[in-house]
C-alpha cells in the first residue's frame, strides 16, 4: 500500500480520536466549563454531535475524493481552479459541524442522574461551552478533511489541497 494512503487513513483515525475522545476529555476534565453535569452532558449531548460531525466531515472528504477520482480535466488550469470547490467543501464541513453542535445542544434532552430530571442540553449549563467547541471545529476540519484530503485526493487533483504537494513529497520521494 502506498504510504500516502497510510497517512490519509492515519489522519482520519487521529481525527476521530480527537473529535470523539480528546475533545470529550477536554470538556469533562480540562476545560473549566460551567457545567452542572459535565460527564452526562458530554456523553449525551457532545458525543452524538461529535459523531454526526465526524460522519459529515468524512462525507465531505469522500465526496471530494470521489470527485477527484472521476473528474477529467482538459488543462491544468481547470484542475487548479477546483481549489474553489475544495475550499467550499472545507467551509461547508466546518459550518455543518457548528450547526450540528448547536442543534444537539439546543434540542437533545439530557437525563441527569443527580436530580433524576430530564432537561434540554442547554439548560444543564449555566453557559454552553461554544467558546471552546466552535474554535475546535477548525482543528476538526484540519484533522478530518484537510490533512486526509492532502493524502487521499486522486489523479489530477492530488496536489490541489494546500500543502498536499509538500506533504506527499515528505512521504514519497518525487
Amino acid at each position: 500500500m502506498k504510504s500516502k494512503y497510510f497517512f490519509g487513513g492515519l489522519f482520519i483515525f487521529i481525527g476521530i480520536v480527537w473529535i470523539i475522545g480528546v475533545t470529550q476529555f477536554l470538556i469533562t476534565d480540562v476545560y473549566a466549563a460551567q457545567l452542572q453535569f459535565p460527564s452526562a452532558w458530554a456523553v449525551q449531548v457532545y458525543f452524538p454531535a461529535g459523531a454526526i460531525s465526524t460522519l459529515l466531515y468524512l462525507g465531505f472528504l469522500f465526496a471530494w475524493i470521489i470527485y477527484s477520482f472521476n473528474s477529467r480535466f482538459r488543462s491544468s488550469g481547470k484542475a487548479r481552479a477546483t481549489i474553489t470547490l475544495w475550499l467550499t467543501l472545507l467551509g461547508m464541513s466546518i459550518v455543518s459541524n457548528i450547526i450540528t453542535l448547536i442543534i444537539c445542544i439546543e434540542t437533545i434532552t439530557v437525563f441527569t442522574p443527580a436530580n433524576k430530571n430530564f432537561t434540554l442540553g442547554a439548560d444543564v449549563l449555566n453557559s454552553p461551552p461554544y467558546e471552546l467547541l466552535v474554535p475546535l471545529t477548525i482543528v476538526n476540519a484540519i484533522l478530518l478533511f484537510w490533512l486526509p484530503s492532502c493524502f487521499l485526493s486522486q489523479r489530477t487533483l492530488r496536489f490541489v489541497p494546500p500543502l498536499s504537494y509538500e506533504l506527499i513529497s515528505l512521504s514519497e520521494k518525487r
Partner: protein
Amino acid sequence: MQKIYAIGIGGTGAKCIRSTVHLHVIGAYGADVRLGVLLVDADASNGNLQSARETVEIALSGSSNLKDTNTLLFSGPIKNYGLWNPLGEFSDRLTLSDIYLEASMRATDSGLGELFDCLVSPEEKQADLSVGFRGRPSIGSAVVGRIGLSNSSHGPWAELINDIQADCANGDVPRIHLFGSIFGGTGSSGLPTLGTLLSRELKAIRESVQITASVLLPYFDFDIPDDDDIYAEAKNFTLNTDAALQYMSRLAGDSFNCVYLLGDSVKQRYEKPATGGPRQNNPSSCIELMASAAISADVGMGYGNGAYLTVSDDNLMTWEDIPGDLTASTLKSGLRTAYAWYYNLYNEIREAQRLSSKKSFTRGAPWFDRFFTLNGEGNRPDIDCEDEGRKIFAFDKWVVDFLDWFQQIGMSGTAREQLADIRDHEFVNSQGYEPDPNRDYEESLESLLIGQSLAKREKWKHSIDLLKNKLADNKHRLEGTIGLVNNLFEII
C-alpha cells in the same frame, strides 16, 4: 543495426520519402534502423520535393534533439544525402534540343537528327526543363538515359555508395529502396535507370546488397494544368505505365531483388494541378504510405514476389490494410502522441513557462515535476532553459508536419475520411513562448482513430488526463521534453 537507403525519384518519389521519414521517426521499421535519404528530381522548386526536404530537415532536427537509443520515437538515425538533379551537368542547357546539341547532331549525322524527330515532338524538344520532365517519359528517359557511371563518382552518389560499401565491409546487408511513379516523367525514366546503375556500380558487393523498389502505378487523376503547353496528361498514364513496366520487366528487372507495385482502382483527383514548380504540391496519399511500408517487408516474402496485397474496401483504407508488423501500431501511437501534444501538452508546457512558480503549476499538473525541475530544485531539466526550448520547438515542428501529412493521408480516400478523424483541423506551427490560442484543449482521444476500439481494461487510454496521470505516477529514466514525449508514446 539495419541500414536502409531510401531514394525518392520525382514528385511521387518525394512524397513517398515524406511518408518513409515519418514512418522511420515513429519506429515503424524497428528500433535499430538507420535511414539514409536521397531525393532525385530535375525540378528543384517542385512543391512536393520541397515538402519532402522540409520533412527530412524536421526529422533530422527532431532526431538530434530528441533521440534516445532505448526508445522508439526518433530512435533511428537519419542521414540526408540531399538532392541530386539529373540535369545538373546540363545546367546551362535547359531544353532537350540543347542537351542533345541538336544542331550539331544534325550537321554531323542527319539520320540521327531524323531519329530524334521521330522520338521527340517539337514541343518536347523546346520545353523548358527547369521544372522537370513535365510528366513525359520521353523527355525523362532521353535525359536520364545519358547519365553515365561517372555521375556516381561525385556528389551525393559518391557518399551514398561509400556508405553502402562500408556497411557491407562491416557485415551488414544494406537495403536500397527506390520510390517513384511509373506513369510520369522523372520516376518512370529514373527509377529503372537508377536501379540498374546502382546494381552495376555495386557489382562487387551485389550479393550483400538488397535493391528493392516501390513502383507506383496510376493512382491519381487531374484536369489539364493551366500553366503551360507541355504538361503531364492523365490520359497517357496507362500507356506510359504499360511501356515503363515492359521496360522494367525486360531490361531492368534483374537489377532489383524485389519490386512492389502499388496502385489504386479508384483514382484520387487532384484539384488545381501544376506541371512542376512550387505549385506542384499534391497532397499525400495512402498509396504512398503503403509504398513506404514496403520497406519493412522481407525481400521476396510476404506481400512481395508475386503475392497480392489488397485492401478490404475499394474506396477506403482501414488500419488492418496497412502492411508490416509494426507499421499500423506505431502509426496509431504516433498519431495519438502527436494529437495529445498538439491539443494539450504543448499549451500546458507553454502555460508552465508563463508561470513563475512551477510549484503552483504542478498543483494542476502532477506529471510536470516528473520531467522538469520546480524552481531550479533537483537535477531535472529546467523547462525555461534554452536546451528544453529547442527540444520543445523541434518536437512541435515534427508534430505539425506529421499531423499535416496524416491529415492528407486520411483525406485521400475517395469515399470519406479514413484512418483518422482530423479532416476539419488546421495544423499550424506556433510562434513564441505563449500558449497558442488556436489550439483548443482536447481531453479525449476516443474518436481520433476510425474503426478502432480499445479493450475494456485499456479504455483509460482514451483520456489525455488519465495518460498524464499515468506519467505522474511513475518515475522515468528519461526526463525533460525527451522523457515526456517518449514516455507518452510508450504508454499511449
